[in-house]
């Protein structure tokens, strides 16, 4: 149990129920409507008070701005965080990349009054102000800690499928590795089997794309696809929109260029959770905008909850 979990557990009887604003980022609302819908429809069923973090802009990309200009990273991240602060909510993020950008920026601003003051000088140009009074939480933390892994294990209907998982590099932000553990345990709670393929830790290649697209495609994403296709799995489960973006682009490019077909559907953990809690795949648009046909997968999922 992490220190944060212990504190929350101790506060549970008296602490007010957390309210969250869902930060969508760039990829989820434009490439993964099924994930956005599954999250927004399922979390209220689990007792999570969730609304959208409205007026959001790019997080911005930590891999670019932290190394180029710290002020830009902190100020543009604050612009997103202050929307939640004004609404009196904490921030919830599913994309690991957006999470790192916003979590780290918030940590710097809460610990450094000097940085916060400088950020507010720039935000004033748009008539905005940020007090750094919100928490940034990952979807996995909300599910595992707030809803509770035991409750999910107890209530969720087991889905009779076998899956591979891709956690993503930024899920390893914390030394205790709790996000990766949460991802593993939550997936295991929902499906028959999580099949190891040996390259779970390998990067999707997203950041390498900025420097060398060939390397990112063939030495990263495709190596994962090759390893996964050697096993009999029904889906590849992710939570990170950045990794999804890279997989979607690479799958399309390999199909066009090399006639290489990765026919394992890439899906979001929230889709499994939604079906497991009684939401029909067609109610969250599971059939559309996919990297591979999902009809067989949907049939298996629907048979599991009949």
């Amino acid at each position, binding site marked *: 149990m992490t220190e944060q979990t212990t504190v929350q557990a101790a506060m549970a009887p008296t602490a007010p129920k957390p309210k969250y604003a869902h930060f*969508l*980022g*760039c*990829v989820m*609302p*434009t*490439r993964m*409507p*099924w994930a*956005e*819908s599954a999250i*927004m*429809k399922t979390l209220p069923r689990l007792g999570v008070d969730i609304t*959208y973090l*409205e*007026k*959001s*802009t*790019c997080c*911005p*990309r930590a891999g*670019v701005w932290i190394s180029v*200009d710290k*002020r*830009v990273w902190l*100020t*543009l991240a604050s*612009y997103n965080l202050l929307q939640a602060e004004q609404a009196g909510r904490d921030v919830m993020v599913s994309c690991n990349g957006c999470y790192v950008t916003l979590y780290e920026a918030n940590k710097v601003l809460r610990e450094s009054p000097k940085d916060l003051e400088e950020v507010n000088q*720039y*935000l*004033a*140009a*748009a*008539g*905005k102000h940020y007090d750094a009074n919100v928490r940034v939480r990952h979807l996995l933390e909300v599910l595992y800690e707030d809803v509770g892994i035991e409750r999910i294990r107890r209530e969720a209907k087991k889905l009779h499928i076998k899956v591979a998982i891709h956690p993503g590099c930024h899920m390893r932000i914390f030394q205790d590795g709790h996000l990766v553990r949460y991802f593993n345990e939550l997936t295991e709670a929902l499906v028959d089997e999580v099949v190891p393929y040996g390259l779970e830790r390998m990067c999707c290649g997203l950041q390498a*794309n*900025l*420097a060398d*697209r060939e390397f990112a495609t063939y030495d990263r994403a495709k190596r994962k696809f090759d390893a996964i296709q050697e096993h009999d799995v029904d889906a590849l489960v992710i939570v990170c929109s950045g990794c999804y973006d890279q997989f979607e682009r690479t799958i399309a490019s390999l199909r066009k260029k090399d006639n290489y077909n990765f026919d394992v559907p890439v899906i979001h953990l929230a889709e499994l959770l939604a079906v497991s809690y009684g939401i029909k795949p067609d*109610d*969250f*648009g599971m*059939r*559309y*905008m996919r990297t591979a046909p999902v009809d067989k997968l949907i049939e298996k999922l629907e048979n599991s909850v009949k």
Partner: protein
Amino acid sequence: MKELYPWRRPVKIPLPSSVKPQLIRHFSIGLLYPVTEELKEARVKAGLDAIPPTAHRYHEAVDDIQKIVKAMGIDKKMGLDMEKMEYKFK
């Protein structure tokens, strides 16, 4: 410093070509990807509003980002003309 290092000059480091269009999208629509007709259809089929409640719907967020970027002076540092959304240095 100039007395010590008379030949030292500020240098313009070129932005990677893969980053340039991303920054233009970030500063002109607020996010990296636009909303297409195919997306609107898929979002409605997913039970969502056709336009997401991000800067795609709230254009004032884009105006705010542009004001902040100009206040920081990074547009000039990058050689980005924010009115034309064009880079000065190709």
